[in-house]
C-alpha cells in the first residue's frame, strides 16, 4: 500500500448523494470505495481511511471489506486490467488455460502487473455472464466466450 498520502474526494456532491441514499452510513461502504477507486485507480491507505471515517468504522475493519472483494485493489493495476472469471461455468469452460496463457505471455501471476505496466491479471468471481463462459473483463468491458486467440486479438486492439 502506498503510504503517507492524503486523500480527498474530488466530487463531494457524489459522496453526499451516496451517503444520503442509505439510512445506515455503513451501507455506503461499497459505493464509496468504488468511487475512491475510480478516482485514484486503486485504493490507497489514505483513501481507505477517508472512507472509513465517512462511514464511521475503523480503517482496520474497512480492510476486511476491501480485501474481501476481488474488485478492490490496494496497489496500482496495469493500464489494461484483465479479470478472468474463475467461477464454476467459466472454470469448466477453460478459464484456467486463459490464466495460464496470460501468465506465461506477460510473465505475471494472479495479482501482478507486467513490468511495463501495461497489463495486470486477477482471477475474479462470477461476472454474471455464465451462459457465455468463459468470460473475462478488461477494465470496464466484458468479453464473452473467450479463447486464447480471441484474447490476443482483443488485447492488440485496445
Amino acid at each position, binding site marked *: 500500500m502506498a503510504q503517507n498520502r492524503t486523500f480527498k474526494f474530488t466530487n463531494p456532491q457524489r459522496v453526499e448523494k451516496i451517503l444520503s441514499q442509505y439510512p445506515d452510513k455503513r451501507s455506503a461502504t461499497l459505493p464509496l470505495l468504488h468511487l475512491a477507486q475510480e478516482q485514484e485507480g486503486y485504493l490507497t*491507505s489514505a483513501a481507505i481511511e477517508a472512507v472509513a471515517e465517512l462511514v464511521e468504522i475503523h480503517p*482496520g475493519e474497512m480492510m*476486511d471489506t476491501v*480485501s*474481501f472483494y476481488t474488485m478492490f485493489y490496494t496497489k496500482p493495476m496495469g493500464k489494461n486490467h484483465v479479470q478472468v472469471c474463475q467461477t464454476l461455468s467459466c472454470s469448466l469452460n477453460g478459464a484456467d488455460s486463459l490464466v495460464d496463457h496470460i501468465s506465461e505471455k506477460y510473465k505475471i501471476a494472479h495479482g501482478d502487473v507486467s513490468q511495463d505496466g501495461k497489463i495486470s491479471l486477477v482471477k475474479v468471481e462470477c461476472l454474471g455472464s455464465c451462459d457465455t463462459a468463459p468470460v473475462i473483463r478488461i477494465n470496464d468491458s466484458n468479453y464473452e466466450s473467450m479463447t486464447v486467440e480471441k484474447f490476443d486479438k482483443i488485447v492488440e486492439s485496445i
Partner: protein
Amino acid sequence: MPLIKIDDKEIEVEKGITVLQAAIDERIEIPYYCYHPALSIVGSCRMCLVEIEGMPKLQVSCNTTIGELPPERKKDGKYDMIVRTQTEIVKRERENVLEFLLLNHPLDCPVCDQAGECYLQDYSYKYGRAHSRFLEEKRVRKNEYLGSNVIINHNRCIMCTRCVRFTREISGTNELFVQARGDVSKISIFEDKSLDNMLAGNVIDICPVGALLSTDYIHKNRFWNLEAKKSICTDCSVGCNILVYSQNNRIYRLNARENHNVNGYFICDIGRYGFHRYEDAEKVTSPLIRSDGGFKPISWEGALKEIYEQFSMSMSGEKQQIVGIASPFHTNESLFMFGRLMNNIFKDKSIIGKLPFIEDYEIHFDSGFRISKDRSPNRKGLLDFCPNLEDEILQKVKAGEVRLCYALDDGVDRKLDEEWESFFKSQRFLVVQTYAMTPLAKLAHLILLGPSPMEREGTMTNDQGRIQWLNPSVSLTNKTRPDWEIIMEFMNTVGKRELKYTSVNEVNLEMGERFPDYRGRTFFKIGYQGLPKKNITTSRPSEGRQAIQ
C-alpha cells in the same frame, strides 16, 4: 418469563437471551467456537447448531434469541421454545462442521501448545470423524508474528474471528483484520501496526484452537504436565484473577481467570508476563547476617537471637526509635501482624512508614478494563492495618536517636534513591525481610528469608475494597518461612508473647476479630472470587456470564 425446554430440562429464562446462553447457564453443553461471552456475536463457526421445534432447519444457538409465544401457540401447551441438542441430525451437523474446520488443519496436536485444552481437539474426539475424506492438498502457510509476543499458526486457525473482535471491542486497538475470503482468508495485521497493545496476550487465551501462540510459552511444556492454581495478580491494585500454571515449582505461564467483579475475562500483559521478573531477581536462600562487608548464612535461631539482642534493648528506656517499613506488596495477614508488632509491642517508640508508592500511569480501555496507576497490590490493606502510617517518614525520624529498622521487601522493582539509601544506611540495625537481594536488602544487617510473591499466601484488598485470596502457586523453599510467621516470632522474641498461630488461617481469624471490616472474611468464605470488605455493601455489580470454555 419464557419457559423453554432444552432436551429434557425445563428452564425458565430471561426474555431475549440466546439459546446458547440459556444452555450455558444450565450447564448443558452445546459446542461452540466463535461465541465468546465478552464479544459481539457473529454466528460464523456453525458449531453451535441445534434443532428447534417448528423451525425447518437447524439454528445457530448463539444467535437465536428466546421470546414469548402467545398462549395459544405455546409448544406442548406451555413451552415458548423446544430445543434439542443431542439428536442424530444435530450430531451429524457437528461432524460435518468439524470436517470443514479440519480441511486445512494440520492435525499436529502432538506439537501444538493448545493440545489438551483445545476445543477443536475435544469436539473432534466427541463428534468428529475418525478418518479424513480430504484427498486434496492442504493449504499450508508459514507461521507469522502478529506482535512481539504473539505468533499465528495460520494452518490451525478456524477463522472464528474472536481475536479480531477482541482488538475491536475490548482493547479498542484494531490491529487485526480478516484478509481476503474463502480458503485464502487469514488473520492479518492492519498495515504495520503490530499486535502490541497492553491486552494483546488475551487473544492467545481466547483463541479456541492452537492458532495464536505465546512466544513466551511456545513449545515449553505440555498442558497436562501443568498444575493450575487460582490466584490473583499482584502487579497493580486492581488484583486481576489469574490461573498460574506450574510444574515442579516452576511457573510456565499465567492465564486470565474470570471474575466479573474485578477483571471480567481478561488480564493485561504486565501481569501476564510479570512473573519472569521474580525469576530474574537474585534470590536469597537462607537468613543472612552481615559479616566482613558481605553476608553469611545464619540459622533462624541465630537470627532471632540477633533480633532479641538488638531490639529488646530498645525496650529498656534508652532513647531509641523503632522504624517499621511496611509495604503494600504484603498480604493483609502479614501487615496485620506487622501493625501489631509496631503498635502493641514497640508502642510509641515505633513509627511506621513505607517507601514511596510505586506508581505509573493509569490505563483505561473503553470496554471497561483498567490497569491502575497504583502498581502495588495491597495499598488498601496497608492503610487498613497500619492506620498510623507516616507518609513523611524521612522527615519524621528524630535526629540523634538510635534507630533500629525492620523493613518488609517492597516488590521486585523497588529501587532506592539516594535519600532513602542514606536513610537506611543511617540505621544502627537494619532488618530486611525479603526473598531477593534487592537494593534494600543489600543494606541490611540481617536478612530474614520470606516468601516470594508466588509463594505467599494470604488475602489482599484491591482498590475497590475487595478482599481476594493470594494463593501460593509454588511451595516454600527449605528455609523460607511465611511472612506472618516471621513477624510472629519477632513479636514472641522481643515482646515476650506466646503467639502460636500454626497457619495463615488462624492469623486471618484473629485479624477479623480485631478489624470489623474483615470479620468473617475467611479463606473459605471469600473463595476464589473474593468478597468486598464488610463496610462496602456493593462493589461493581456482577455482570456477564460464566463461560464453560
